[in-house]
């Protein structure tokens, strides 16, 4: 299998007056699984179409193995794409759908048959080869769409939210399967999604896009534990990170965050921002619940949500709200007072939107 690296250099694209992509730079190593993550309308699908050669960019360059491919047609770029809508050919059988790309590239009939059968076996759809797409369930169609890309063994795989039309249970299964297949085949993948769980589980590398800009690029751990800005911090993680804006004050040489009706100790180095507005963030799982008597942030429980595997407490601290992950065995009641402490080093500090 030929594996290629992919580089996007200063890609910009506008539709009319709307700038969809602004100076996007991404590098994907060969064999890596890169996830483009962002809310809908952030330009990620457009970026995918530009990589495939289906939409021309206004400026910038797409490089495969270091060579610009901007002047090549989709056919010449040798990429395969899985579409959100699956986009199967309705007038062809599953087998013909799978073999179409190979047929267009002049592969011999015998070889096509062999490869189609291999991929069908890999995906467990060998019994469906003679059916038309309209005779398949949503999950089966999704498999055929993936198979159509896999069978070609292209230089780069592009996935455009391929799981978003499946129900939650099936999605989780296919997600794992996809990860397995990738570990087995080691193709270069660019995968677009707005689902952070997909991004975290699948990606070797995550690129967070927002309003046409790359907000952060890095490993899943990196992006989750060291979000580069306020947007990335709030976009990743369920429930969302607790974010508070306030002011840095100097209390006898200690840096203290003054929020709405509560205060929190900060690292001493933040004294250089004394009297300035900052934002702090803390993930629900980074808050510890101590005995009510021990010192800490006093919080009053307003609501408890138990989702089975874990319990979240939504509580009030001063004039703000906080979401806290509690141990499964915790007994929490509405109106109860908790004493909260943050896990050392888990505080995220943002100054003018950027991480400090």
């Amino acid at each position, binding site marked *: 299998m030929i594996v290629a690296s992919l580089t996007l250099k200063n890609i910009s694209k506008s539709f009319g007056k709307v700038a969809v992509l602004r100076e996007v730079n991404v590098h994907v190593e060969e064999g890596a699984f890169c996830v483009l993550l962002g809310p809908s309308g952030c330009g990620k699908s457009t970026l995918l179409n530009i990589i495939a050669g289906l939409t021309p960019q206004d400026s910038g360059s797409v490089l495969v193995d270091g060579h610009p491919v901007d002047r090549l047609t*989709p*056919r010449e770029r040798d990429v*395969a*794409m899985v579409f959100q*809508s699956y*986009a*199967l050919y*309705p007038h062809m059988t599953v087998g013909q759908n799978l073999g179409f790309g190979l047929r267009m*590239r002049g592969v011999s009939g015998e070889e096509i048959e062999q490869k189609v059968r291999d991929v069908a076996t890999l995906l467990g759809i060998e019994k469906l080869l003679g059916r*038309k797409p309209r005779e398949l369930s949503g999950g089966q169609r999704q498999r055929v769409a993936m198979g159509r890309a896999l069978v070609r063994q292209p230089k780069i795989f592009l996935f455009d939210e391929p799981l978003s039309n499946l129900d939650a249970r099936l999605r989780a299964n296919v997600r794992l399967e996809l990860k397995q297949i990738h570990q087995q085949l080691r193709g270069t993948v660019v995968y677009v999604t707005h689902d952070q769980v997909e991004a975290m589980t699948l990606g070797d590398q995550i690129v967070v896009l927002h309003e046409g800009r790359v907000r952060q690029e890095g490993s899943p751990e990196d992006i989750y534990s060291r979000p580069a800005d306020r947007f990335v911090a709030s976009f990743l993680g369920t429930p969302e990170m607790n974010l508070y804006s306030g002011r840095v004050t100097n209390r006898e040489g200690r840096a203290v965050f003054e929020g709405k009706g509560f205060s929190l100790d900060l690292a001493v180095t933040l004294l250089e921002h004394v009297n300035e507005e900052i934002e702090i963030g803390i993930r629900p799982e980074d808050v510890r619940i101590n005995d009510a008597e021990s010192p800490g942030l006093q919080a009053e429980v307003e609501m408890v949500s138990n989702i089975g595997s874990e319990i979240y407490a939504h509580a009030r601290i001063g004039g703000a709200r906080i979401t806290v992950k509690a141990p499964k065995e915790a007994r929490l009641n509405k109106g109860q007072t908790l004493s909260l402490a943050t896990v050392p080093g888990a505080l995220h500090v943002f100054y003018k939107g950027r991480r400090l």
Partner: protein
Amino acid sequence: MRHWGQEGIEEGMIRILRVVGILFFFVMVGFPFYWMVVSSLKSLQELLLHPENLGLEIGKLDFTAYGEVLFEHGFLQYISNSVYVAVLTVLLSLSLATLGGYAVTRLYFRGQAFMSLSILVIYMFPAIVLVIPLYVVFSWLGLRDSIHVLILVYLAQTLPVALYMLRSYFQNLPAEIEYAGLTDGCTRLGVIWRIVIPLSAPALASVALYTFMIAWNEFLFAFMFLDSPEKFTLSRGVVQLAGSVHLSKQLVMAASVLVTVPIVVLFLFFERHLVRGLTAGAMKG
């Protein structure tokens, strides 16, 4: 006792109107058609002796009118001319309208919106306005008495509507299927040939039928442009026959049946294909 409310009255009215409508069309269309077929199957004698007889006796069926029309009045030639003209018009219309309709829906080029709009504007010119100038122009060019020029003129009439019909159909085809084709290694023409055309079969069938009917039935241009009897199309031939000195009704009726029946048969054959959508199952659905 049943209460006649507002809805009951409305429903009754609709039912009555429906029956009246069907009856009206049956009388206006069905009766002349029936009369035409019946008359063509009777002998001249029978027609003259019993003009009021609407019935038809199976034992007395007389096909001599058809034989005469076909072999003595040149209708075999006219039929083959009409078939030639209509089939060629259909093929040219389909290929040009497919390419053109695809271009204005999927490709982006300067003047695309203008092109798209002008398609219908062209159709707004009534044929009667164009026939005299065209007559003059083609006479100058010495191209008037030609079947191929006739095809050209028919194309000018059928293309706008064909383009319009196909364009709206293409607009509803999911673009992602074409994208899939392109990444799978098709060229643009390959996408049109292997994906767009098979998926547009119902629309193409409608366009083909429409174009065929126009070309088959057209009279005005055929009447103005064609002088030599060996180049006559069917409709032109019928008029020639009706205007000839020894007019006999059953001959004209037989000729008219020859003009009408192919269209009816064609329509019945294509009808099933016209509405059925083929894209079912492509998308997540």
